């Protein structure tokens, strides 16, 4: 669960205030709104990547998957297992899970290809898998459908529905179809005082 209590974030020289804002476990919350309304900024503040004032209660580990996939100079597979490696977890315990999601996202054919030579859609899918493979408590997805085709969005919808019961998922998006498909809670930004 994530709880924002009188949080102030500076965004483009404007201070955006968030009063008593709660994101619950088992729910997918969408943050929508026009460009420049501060969706990414809010997610980055929750991920503790940017400075903010006020209190953000984070119960558990928060991971952030950015709109532009930042994959490391490794293969797709090495990128996906990176969070497991740094936690020194036994990768064999995760093989079934990796195989299942890799097949779902149709990454199996390019699993050992250098990540940076893959298409942006493939990189986005690998970036999402890397973000969820170690089962974080909170998953933040910033505009995840931007680089994805319709089939990939359907796969992502299926995946998120499957994992949401154990996670707090917050997604910034203005993809109406995607929101309608998955939406539990929707916050529309626009007014800087939510």
């Amino acid at each position: 669960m994530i709880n924002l209590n009188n949080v102030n974030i500076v965004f483009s020289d404007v201070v955006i205030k968030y009063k008593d804002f709660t994101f619950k476990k088992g729910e997918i919350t969408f943050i929508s709104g026009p460009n420049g309304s501060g969706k990414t900024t809010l997610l980055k503040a929750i991920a503790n990547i940017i400075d903010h004032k006020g209190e953000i209660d984070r119960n558990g580990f928060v991971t952030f998957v950015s709109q532009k996939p930042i994959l490391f100079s490794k293969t797709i597979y090495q990128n996906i297992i990176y969070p497991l490696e740094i936690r020194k977890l036994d990768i064999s315990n995760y093989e079934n899970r990796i195989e299942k999601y890799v097949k779902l996202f149709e990454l199996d054919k390019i699993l050992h290809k250098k990540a940076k030579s893959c298409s942006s859609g493939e990189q986005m899918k690998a970036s999402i898998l890397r973000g969820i493979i170690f089962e974080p408590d909170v998953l933040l997805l910033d505009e995840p459908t931007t680089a994805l085709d319709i089939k990939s969005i359907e796969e992502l919808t299926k995946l998120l529905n499957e994992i949401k019961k154990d996670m707090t998922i917050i997604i910034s998006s203005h993809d109406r179809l995607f929101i309608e498909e998955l939406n539990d809670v929707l916050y529309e930004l626009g007014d800087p005082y939510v």
Partner: protein
Amino acid sequence: MIQESIVEAFNLLMSFDEEIYQIIFLSLTLALLATLTALVFGVFFGILISSTTFKGKRFVKKLIFTFMGIPPVVLGLFVLLLTIGPLDPVFNLFTVQVMFFAQFLLVLPIITGNIIISSEKTQKEVLETAETLGASRMDKVKLLIVETKPFILMSMILGFSRAISEVGAVMLVGGNIRYSTRTMTTYIARSNSMGDYSKSIAMGIILLILAFVIHSILARFRGDFYD
């Protein structure tokens, strides 16, 4: 003239003249050693400057970027003054050691500056991503080295190109002494001033061929840079 020089270049190489090979060996050794030494310091300073925040950082960066374009002859003059001044106990003028020092100083800002420019943005994104995946400080350092590797090689190529091609600094501090401190570029300058243009161009061709061979070897480590 060009045709004549190509024949002259071939003759120079085939003559197995000890002086020519000594000149080539000295030039390559100096440029490679200066580049590799500057690489060690440049990568360290580059990553340190780009990944930390301190007072005067902008000024330090401006200074490094200014020194990236310093004319070799000006740097040579600076090293010359140092050698006859405070560094007198360390270096003697007209020696290979002081030539190495001058080339090292010439290449250092090029490598440091390029590491700063190329890694600043990448580092920020990579480190942020690693942080949100739970990476420790040590994990982030390891990742940073891997992610900066292509830029390190690119900086090395630029540094080596600068070192092998410069003439002003080695001429000033080395003195272009036959069988001692003469390099390929000072040989070219000397032949040119004596009106022996075909020898100048011939050595120039050899220099370009060697640079091409070294770049081809480096390209094996980072093919995409040349694509």
